[in-house]
């Protein structure tokens, strides 16, 4: 018998619209020393399974049917109180966000000792010793000293190590890891995954690793369960699922993952139930509204040049306090973007890549340096209507599809607003017509204009965001992590759309992301940033195949590998 056995598990959430079935008839098993990856997009029900095993379903969720066994011991019939001695002792759990998983008011030691003593009854002294050993084993240097510190004195990666140590306190037989690396930077992610793998083998622990990231699965899991809307659609070895998927949905999911080892022109199959490939219709810029009155520069030479750009943020804590700390977010950055190309900026959190986007668009003011857009100095205020319109040719697509649209305006008004402000239509009626036209261009039906943003999914909202950017007749589009909040199949659709629009509309793209495989698909040239500085600029293929700077080499080395044969 397997260590963990789930038979026909069904989980339900009764609500106002009836009963929502989050997980339907799922059967799984995990052996000792094995990592089972559960993968799926949002709403697949993957996290719910972990919570159900622990008896920690959020109200009003309940187990509607099926059985859960741990080492032959039936869990699903146990009450909340009966489950308590099992939680932490026999099953450990690792949460997604290390920043919020620890009690901020107690030292790491206090939290470890409490958990150890509770389950193992070792007494104060022995528990303290074990706590130090655990921290040491999860790779925290100087464990004996650091254990006296509070959570806020640890970095994100280190906190996740503390969380893992807490999960290991009582030598559990089984661990449920719910998106354990999603909140972490790539380089930290690789270390944490390495640690998790090592612990599983050494301690012969069984593990469920819940994630949305195929790269993480490919690197870590032994077997994979693919979930779609509460159903288990495919179960197999990692090798089989990633290289030879059988179920239609798995095929879509795999083909939507950007391969890390080469560039594909388009993601081929991106839609599971609708079958459209979603190619943007051809349009003639000469005659289309989008091309009207736009001076098309020659495609030779740079369209945007940035020289010695600096940005220093001062944190002012007002009133009586002296000027606070300063952060040098962008240090002496220079680059030039050629008309028609896609230029990428890649870097980890805090590298200053998003700040550059906000400096170019004028949302933040630069501290020093030079920026020129097609002959216009971007650091001075534009004078005259022509100059203003010229400046508006730089537009931006934002990261968070939920906060980037005003929830109180209808989609039509959102898209028509820039047309009206910039006087690009003769009347309100014409502007609304143009807005509908643009919504169609990004493949939303014309009736989308009459609805509010909350009626749309994340991917659809991102399309609305693109339509709004197009409404200013841009030539230069900044995409700031445009797909990092989206599921992988939606990501593929949006990336396809951006590529098509760039082709049809003769756009230049500045593409900002932390996701290297995505960058490889999108960019012609890439700048690598670290702590506010550009460490390397090169053609995309060179960055991946022959990185020069040691930091770039490190990033490429740690990137989760999801390799596909070129023909796929």
């Amino acid at each position, binding site marked *: 018998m397997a260590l963990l056995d789930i038979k026909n598990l069904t989980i339900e959430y009764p609500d106002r619209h009836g009963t929502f079935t989050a997980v339907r008839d799922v059967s799984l098993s995990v052996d000792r020393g094995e990592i089972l990856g559960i993968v799926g997009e949002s709403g697949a029900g993957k996290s719910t399974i972990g919570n159900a095993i*622990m008896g*920690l379903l959020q109200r009003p969720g309940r187990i509607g049917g099926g059985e859960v066994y741990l080492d032959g011991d039936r869990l699903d019939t146990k009450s909340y109180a009966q489950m*308590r*001695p*099992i*939680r*932490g*002792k026999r099953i*450990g*759990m690792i*949460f997604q*966000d290390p920043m*919020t*998983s*620890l*009690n*901020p*008011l*107690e*030292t790491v030691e206090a939290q470890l000792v*409490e*958990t150890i003593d*509770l*389950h193992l009854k070792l007494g104060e002294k022995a528990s303290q010793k074990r706590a130090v050993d655990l921290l040491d084993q999860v790779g925290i240097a100087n464990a004996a000293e650091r254990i006296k510190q*509070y959570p*806020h*004195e640890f970095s994100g990666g280190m906190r996740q190590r503390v*969380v893992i140590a*807490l*999960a290991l*306190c*009582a030598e559990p037989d089984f661990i449920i890891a719910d998106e354990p690396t999603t909140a972490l930077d790539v380089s930290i992610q690789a270390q944490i995954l390495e640690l998790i793998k090592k612990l599983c083998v050494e301690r012969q622990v069984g593990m469920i690793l819940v994630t949305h990231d195929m790269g993480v699965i490919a690197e870590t899991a032994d077997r994979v369960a693919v979930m779609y809307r509460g159903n288990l659609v495919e179960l197999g070895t990692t090798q089989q699922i990633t290289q030879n998927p059988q179920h239609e949905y798995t095929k879509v999911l795999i083909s939507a993952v950007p391969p890390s080892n080469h560039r594909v022109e388009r993601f081929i199959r991106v839609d599971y139930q609708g079958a459209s490939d979603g190619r943007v219709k051809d349009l003639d810029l000469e005659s289309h509204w989008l091309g009207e009155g736009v001076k098309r520069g020659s495609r030779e030479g740079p369209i945007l040049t940035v020289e010695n750009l600096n940005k220093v943020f001062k944190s002012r804590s007002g*009133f*009586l*306090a002296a000027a606070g700390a300063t952060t040098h977010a962008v240090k002496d950055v220079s680059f030039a973007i050629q008309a028609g190309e896609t230029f990428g900026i890649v870097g980890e959190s805090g590298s200053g890549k998003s700040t550059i986007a906000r400096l170019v668009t004028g949302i933040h003011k630069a501290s020093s340096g030079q920026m020129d857009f097609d002959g216009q100095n971007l650091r001075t205020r534009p004078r005259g209507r022509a100059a203003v319109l010229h400046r508006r040719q730089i537009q931006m697509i934002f990261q968070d599809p939920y906060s980037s649209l005003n929830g109180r305006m209808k989609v039509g008004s959102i898209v028509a607003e820039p047309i009206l402000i910039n006087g690009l239509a003769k009347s309100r009626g014409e502007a609304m017509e143009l807005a509908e036209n643009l919504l169609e261009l990004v493949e939303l039906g014309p009736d989308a204009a009459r609805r509010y943003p909350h009626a749309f999914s994340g991917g659809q909202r991102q399309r609305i965001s693109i339509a709004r950017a197009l409404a200013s007749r841009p030539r230069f589009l900044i995409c700031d992590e445009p797909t990092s909040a989206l599921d992988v199949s939606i990501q593929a659709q949006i990336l396809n759309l951006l590529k098509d629009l760039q082709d049809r509309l003769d756009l230049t793209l500045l593409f900002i992301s932390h996701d290297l495989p995505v960058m490889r698909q999108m960019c012609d040239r890439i700048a690598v940033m670290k702590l506010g500085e550009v460490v390397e600029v090169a053609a995309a293929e060179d960055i991946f195949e022959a990185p020069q700077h040691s930091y770039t080499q490190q990033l490429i080395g740690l990137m989760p590998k999801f390799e596909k044969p070129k023909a796929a």
Partner: protein
Amino acid sequence: MLKYILRRVAQSAVVLLVVGLVAFSMFRFVGDPIENMLGQERTLEDVERLRDRLGLNDPFVVQYWNFLKNASQGDLGISFRQGRPVVDILVERLPATLELALVSAIFAVIVGIGLGVYTAIRPKGWLTQFILTVSLIGVSLPTFLIGILLIYIFAVELGWLPSFGRGETVQLGWWSTGLLTASGLKAIILPAITLGLYQMTLIMRLVRSEMSEVLNSDYIRFARARGLTERSINFRHAIKNTLIPVITITGLQLGSIIAFAIITETVFQWPGVGLLFIDSVNFVDIPVMAAYLMFISVMFVGINLIVDILYVMIDPRLRTEGAN
């Protein structure tokens, strides 16, 4: 940490200066002090002489400076109505108000936190629903009505407790206390409950909402996933995190208890500074109003400083400098 507290002290000083400015402006511009002091029969020379003597011809800033200097030395002017130094009147009335405020603050904090924690831990229980409903009625009942209601039940109908006054007091130096005699203790029960009830409700509702939020946080979910007992989760992990925001607001509430005493003192004819203040508003006795304002703000600033120090003691994130 020291820097943090020093900064708070500096901020408190600014608050006091601003309040002082308001008090002084009232003093100076509302109601003509000359008219109040000289009465109907006066000559122009008298007026000029008095203006000079009172420094009313000095520049505004100089007058303000003198006002602050005098105030810090305990000279807050002379009551228009009673013709006695305001400070003497205040000192005489102070013990009554402070004792009342202290007793009701203790009542409000202990009962408020207790009920708040209970209702957060058992959100679905019938007792919780009952407490919450009663508390909402409590917030909707104006303090003076609660006072009248209590008087009606316990003084008029049952005759257990006195309906007004402080009872017998004992003199301890300049401080007169009612807490050492049986009749004094009996007399403080109704006013203290009346005064504390509103604050108690607020504290309870605050504790409840903060604690429910904490109980839904990731670190509590993680604590559950580690199998910690409900007891440890509620009373070790959740309660400390709840108290941090609660302390600040409770501190503010306690400051306002002293001011709210105005209403209670009126209902129970309690001889404290609140009663004095309401009389001064009625008779436009500006020096007393200004002095009362200064007194309240000193109390407020003091309580706030204590709260800040408590805050630093509980929250390790504030103890290490440079971290957020």
